[in-house]
């Protein structure tokens, strides 16, 4: 990440749901090739931000450009070159992994030999080849997540949004996801925008981290800087200091009285 091109720029981007201010005016710049970690507790507004940036949700105010395209005017241009892994995605239970990837590829206008080659490579990479013809209804949630990650990469996007990519994975599978992200980030110019509430995952994978609390971006910078600034040992401690997760034992046990 060398002070280069900006891949995501938001200007006072915000979103209200009725009275709930899900995302407060957000000014964020993510540079091309960065692996950006969007960290925050449940309900902080991470998913909402991603949905706005990927053109699925209309902002209440402000503006943003993604890969140089305006999110209000050029949604289809953005969609063609980005990939999105939604938070709790539903798969087509009656398709096999191969068929599902074929379907998603076709949605991005891929077909024929080119598509088949990519599917085979991805299935191979994610160690799914053996079960590629089984219906997805029989997959465990970790395997489903792998298929979904494959589906977000199938059209070789420039920018990938991953919303809680490892939330349902076992340690081995999440290590694999980390590896994939690291490898792609190093060897290609792919930008990753990763929502997570897992600090160790963010620390291992991300070059830059933004911490969101109740819709407000309260920290932004490389993990090392954030740790230093908050005088912590690791990102988890820093995060807890920022988010205010100090634990009061008395209150925790008060229900037993």
């Amino acid at each position, binding site marked *: 990440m060398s002070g280069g091109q900006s891949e995501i720029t938001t200007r006072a981007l915000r979103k209200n749901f009725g009275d709930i201010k899900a995302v407060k005016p957000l000014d964020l710049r993510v540079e091309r090739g960065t692996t950006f970690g969007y960290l925050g507790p449940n309900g902080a507004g991470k998913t909402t931000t991603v949905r706005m940036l990927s053109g*699925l949700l209309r902002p209440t105010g402000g503006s943003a450009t993604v890969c140089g395209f305006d999110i209000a005017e050029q949604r289809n241009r953005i*969609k063609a070159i980005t990939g999105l892994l939604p938070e709790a995605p539903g798969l087509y*239970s009656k398709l096999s992994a191969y068929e599902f990837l*074929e379907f998603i590829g076709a*949605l991005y206008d891929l077909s024929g030999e080119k*598509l088949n080659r990519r599917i085979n490579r991805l299935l191979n990479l994610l160690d799914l080849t053996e079960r590629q013809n*089984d219906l997805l209804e029989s997959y465990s949630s970790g395997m489903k997540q792998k298929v979904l990650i494959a589906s977000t990469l199938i059209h070789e996007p420039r920018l990938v949004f991953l919303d809680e990519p490892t939330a349902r994975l076992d340690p081995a599978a999440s290590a694999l996801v980390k590896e994939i992200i690291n490898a792609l980030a190093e060897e290609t110019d792919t930008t990753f925008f990763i929502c997570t509430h897992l600090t160790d995952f963010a620390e291992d994978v991300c070059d830059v981290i933004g911490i969101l609390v109740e819709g407000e971006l309260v920290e932004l910078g490389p993990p090392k800087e954030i740790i230093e600034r908050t005088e912590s040992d690791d990102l988890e401690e820093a995060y807890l200091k920022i988010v205010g997760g100090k634990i009061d034992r008395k209150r925790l046990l008060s229900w037993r009285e």
Partner: protein
Amino acid sequence: MSHGWRAIAKAEFRVSTSRFRRGRLVAFAGAYAFAIVWALLLAPEVVSGLFWMFEVDPNPLIQAGLPGIMRTLLLVLWVMILLYPLSYSLQEIKIGQWEIMLSSNVRTREMLLGMFVGKIPIYFLIALIMAPLFFSVIVSAFSITLLGQALMYLAVFLFVLATIWVSNLLSVGIQAKLGDSPRGNDLAKALSIVVALIFLVPVYGLMYFAGPLTEILGWDIFLVLPSTWCADLLSWIALLSTSLTLPPALMDLYSLILVLPPIAYVILLVAFAVATVVGGFSLSERMFSLESTRGADKVITVKGENAVLRGLRRLMPGSFGTLTVTSIKEFSRKAQNISRVAYGAILAIILPVIFNLSFVGGFGEPIFMLVLSTFMVSMMLGLIAGLTFGGVGFLESKDQLWIIQSGPSGAWKYMKARLLQSFLISIPLALFPAAVVSLIMDLTILDGLLMSLHSYVLMCGCVMIATGITALNPAYEDTKSSAFYVNTLVSMLIIMFLVLGSLILGIRVGAALENIYLLLLTAGMPAILLGGLIAGLGAHRLSAPES
């Protein structure tokens, strides 16, 4: 037995009445108050008013045929009370909840009891509203004493209770067998649709073969049905508590059917109730054991594509062809889709035949026969195609929609592929019932083809209408959501009016041009045009970002 069953019953009741969450108790008290007034005062008035309006005196008819009428009524009531709760509860497998209950050390028979008790209020209410419609006629025809009436209602309600118990038992058993896997859920939904056919076909068969079987056995075959026991008991009560003096000839006629003394029916009914309760309790341990709930949990591996799909790919080599082929696979692998479609096709065959038989001498004019049966087949097929392809078959979940929308123009591509998929699957669906109906009704091949073509055009229109409506207001696979009810209702209304209106338009055009073929072809056009419009609106709405 501890009080765990009460908590379960309460939860069950709350879930089934969650629609009137706010004033649940008020609503129920009100509904019951109304139902009682209805049963005692209103229903007799309404029913006798109806007979008076049509200038029919039902009394002689009912007096002459009491036992037979009673058996039919009870059979209908029994099948309904048995099937409706079963079909309803199969729409959603609840084994996840069982696990919670089992882990909290509730005994399995308490679970069974709780689920049963929780169902009583609502189905009892339904019985309380339905039963008086039939019984008030009988009560007035025999001017039965108040004590007699009370006994009759008591017998019916005990019978309804036993039936709800059996229905609950069946639904628990089936759910346990299928298991809480996506595949199990799909099979359960499929079953909830065809459950009526599964039960009705044997009952029809019984009616058809009743005569010969009774002769072979030497006793009335209908005596095997619990509903018969209750019906015969009711007939006895009516005879014993009537304030009329019945002619001996009539009594002789009755004794041909009421072969057992009243006490025998009481014993049979009590034995039935006790047997199902004891049987249910003793099976409960095995039913709820979660090891046995993995029945449908097997892994299915897909094999190569068949010739039709390969041909389609060759015709459409690009990404759109891939989308369409995948949509066809996805749709046709869901048991619930198949069972809906099969159900519709069977109804489309049965309906015109029944109508034809019930008109004395058929539809008369052959041209009439063609037009009317085409009308019925196409209406049935249009409805079922619309509601299946456009309803639950359209989108599985919200998250799936996010995935589709994140492709460039994803919603439009998806909509087009889904529509083409529906049009393709509709081809055999239009050919098959039309062929059977033409065969039964002796239509010429040309007329049969015309019927198919007209049905097909209408089906395509209806699919677009229903898909468009679902896209405007997505309900996903949740058949209990209000969005689903609204969509279904709106689609049905539009389709029915459209089919009717189109027919009238077609008849006008056909009469002006004196050509029956032009008539039927014109009749399909409005559906196509309106369908195209609504589908376009739906796709537009789906592709807009949410706000």
